[in-house]
């Protein structure tokens, strides 16, 4: 009897991983609990144990293979000796794994459509990078440029980042500038703010922005308000960053999108990038900014690849939205992971003959109102897309601004696509229902164009 060993899912968002090492070879006998492989996920490198016993008859995926899909067969264990049967099964499985791999690649490659972006300018060379790598490179470049920049947070140093965003930074910059903290968000956020008052430029990593709730007093009352309260004498030039919003199946306390919460506060700047090039350019701008910046990342986007310009010093300014695709029938305004649904919807609507203009806000404070108003004046219809809760959402705010500034141009009410007004459920089917979907965006667009 032959048992397939499948690529395990070792983190909530893992869709694929690297089989970095085999500890077994063909012909070895294994028992349940033996460590058979080392697997690198989007979060960490982990050992993987056998759950069945038998003889390893085939290692299907070679050591060092990247992009191995979860649940694809990586090895066979058997106690039979029917070589022919095994060979046949192996070649079938290998073909299947190869297709899966190329599917994964195609899925993770997204090309921005906007023409004035450096990465879509044929004169500027680009390289394909994940959002995760882009953020790390931005931090590393700024740390090389400015000695006062340091990174502090839980597991940022020795562990190499809970989501591997800070991978390699400890090696390059040492323990003085890449600092592991105890699990004590309120305390270390306050220490970082104090150090910023005294002239340093900390980057504070929250393992997730959900944990920033422990520290929100220091972020708002100390970091955001001191410049004003001191009559301009001192403020907090720093970045608070980390994954924000829903990952996958992590439940109500780890899934909230804080975009609207932080965008509410004068004194903060708030960034929520979608693409890797924006993540890089905006992160460099954030670190150089003399104000506290909330930089909202997304766990699902970390592994997504985009083209990033190969420029020595690539920055993206705050307060400037990016038009991803031009269109005439309706405007969709989104940001962060909302862009994923938006772009999918725009693509499908195009096939239906509906031309949608897609705006990626990129920064939520300051917001580029001009670009939105100009677009609405052209299309006369607008849908907003985000993952946060509906009440007091970014979309609510944009609706009000559009009503005030472009009322006479509107041919339909603005519709806000948001996460549902419920704590995030765990069950896979319920979680899908709680989030915004591409289908909802399409139906909202059809509603505003009365189709």
């Amino acid at each position, binding site marked *: 009897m032959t048992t397939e060993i499948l690529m395990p899912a070792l983190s909530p968002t893992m869709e694929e991983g690297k089989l970095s090492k085999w500890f077994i070879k063909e012909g070895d006998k294994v028992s349940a609990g033996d460590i058979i492989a080392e697997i690198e996920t989007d979060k960490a490198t982990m050992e993987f144990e056998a759950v069945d016993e038998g003889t390893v008859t085939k290692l299907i995926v070679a050591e060092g293979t990247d992009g191995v899909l979860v649940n694809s067969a990586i090895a066979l264990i058997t106690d039979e000796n029917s070589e022919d049967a095994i060979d046949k099964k192996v070649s079938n499985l290998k073909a299947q794994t190869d297709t899966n791999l190329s599917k994964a690649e195609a899925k993770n490659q997204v090309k921005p459509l906007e023409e004035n972006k450096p990465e879509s300018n044929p004169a500027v060379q680009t390289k394909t990078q994940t959002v995760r790598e882009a953020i790390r490179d931005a931090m590393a470049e700024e740390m090389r440029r400015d000695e006062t920049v*340091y990174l502090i947070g839980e597991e940022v140093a020795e562990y190499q980042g809970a989501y591997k965003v800070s991978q390699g930074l400890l090696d390059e910059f040492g323990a*003085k500038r890449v600092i592991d*903290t*105890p699990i*004590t968000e*309120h*305390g*270390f*956020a*306050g*220490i*970082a*703010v*104090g*150090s*910023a*008052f*005294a*002239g*340093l430029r900390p980057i504070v990593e929250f393992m997730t922005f959900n944990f920033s709730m422990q520290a929100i*007093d*220091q972020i708002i*009352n*100390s970091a955001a308000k*001191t*410049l*004003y*309260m*001191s*009559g*301009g*004498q*001192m*403020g907090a*030039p720093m970045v608070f960053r980390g994954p924000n919003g829903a990952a996958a199946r992590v439940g109500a306390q780890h899934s909230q999108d804080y975009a609207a919460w932080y965008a509410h506060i*004068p*004194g903060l*700047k708030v960034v929520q990038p979608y693409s890797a090039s924006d993540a890089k350019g905006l992160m460099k701008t954030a670190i150089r900014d*003399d*104000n506290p910046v909330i930089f909202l990342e997304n766990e699902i986007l970390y592994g997504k690849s985009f083209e990033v310009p190969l420029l020595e010093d690539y920055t993206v300014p705050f307060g400037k939205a990016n038009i991803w695709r031009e269109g005439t029938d309706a405007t969709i305004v989104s940001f962060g992971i909302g862009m994923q649904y938006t772009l999918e919807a725009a693509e499908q609507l195009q096939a239906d003959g509906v031309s949608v203009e897609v705006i990626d806000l990129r920064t939520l404070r300051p917001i580029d109102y001009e670009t939105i108003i100009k677009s609405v004046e052209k299309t006369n219809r607008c849908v907003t897309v985000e993952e946060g809760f509906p009440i007091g959402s970014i979309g609510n705010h944009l609706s009000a601004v559009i009503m005030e500034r472009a009322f006479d141009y509107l041919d339909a009410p603005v519709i806000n696509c948001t996460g549902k007004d419920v704590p995030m459920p765990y069950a896979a089917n319920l979680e899908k229902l709680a989030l915004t979907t591409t289908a909802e965006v399409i139906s909202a667009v059809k509603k505003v164009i009365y189709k």
Partner: protein
Amino acid sequence: MAIKKVKRKSTEEKGDLIKFYRDMLLIRRFEEKAGQLYGMGLIGGFCHLYIGQEAVVVGLEAAAKEGDKRITSYRDHGHMLACGMDPNGVMAELTGRSGGYSKGKGGSMHMFSKEKHFYGGHGIVGAQVPLGAGLAFADKYMENKSVTFTYFGDGAANQGQVYETFNMAALWELPVIFVIENNQYAMGTAQERSTSSPEIYTRGDAFGIKGEAVDGMDVVAVRDAGVKAAAHCRAGKGPYILEIKTYRYRGHSMSDPAKYRTREEVQKMRSQRDPIEAIRTLLVSEKHSTEEEIKIIDREIKEIVNLCAEYAKESPEVPAEELWTDIYA
């Protein structure tokens, strides 16, 4: 009963004692004036007076060196005057005028001075404790020998972030002195009603932080404790805790009904333990100063305070456009 005698003999301290007397008296008179202006409606909102606690900041400032930093809570007027900030700028901030340290945008609880290394003036109880450790973190990062005096009260000592900070300050050996100004009341709650163990200075034990209790009505004792604590920090040995036992004569803020303690209790502290009277008595009994010399100081201080009150009243209102400045750097 007479004022408890501060036992100091050395004649070389004469200059120090006179400075202590002057600095404490300036705070006392300034605060009395602030109370008056509050009563006249010239100062609004919250106004927390420091009367009774003067020996704490004056003693510790005598232990500070150039470049040392200080940060405190909302009861901050005394700290600002003691570190050399201009009384005019402080009083004008209390009246919310453009001549104030924060151009009228901070108020009593929120003033800062980069020049004097005074980092506020914080209104959320306990929040200044990690901030103060952060100032010390910056000093260590930049490899200078400065120390940060982080002041907080017995009330704030029950906030969780204080212990998060103790842990990291000890772990990273930050040069910070945690100064607990124990005035025995967290707003209107007496210490025995809020605090399970009265020896707050021992609360660093769990983190390996040395602590000691100090008589906060004796400015010389406070100074000596400060010198010792600062030397510990400057030697790279990490943080130090000083629990300074003091007493606030006035209410928590101007709107305190004072139902939680007796008039007699306050009167007893004033008559027996007043830190300013103690130094005055010492100056005269040890023949460092004559009554006449002390009266000259009293007159000078009165003059400074009257002038700063005038300045605060005359300073122009804040221009409306200031509403929209200093939000972003």
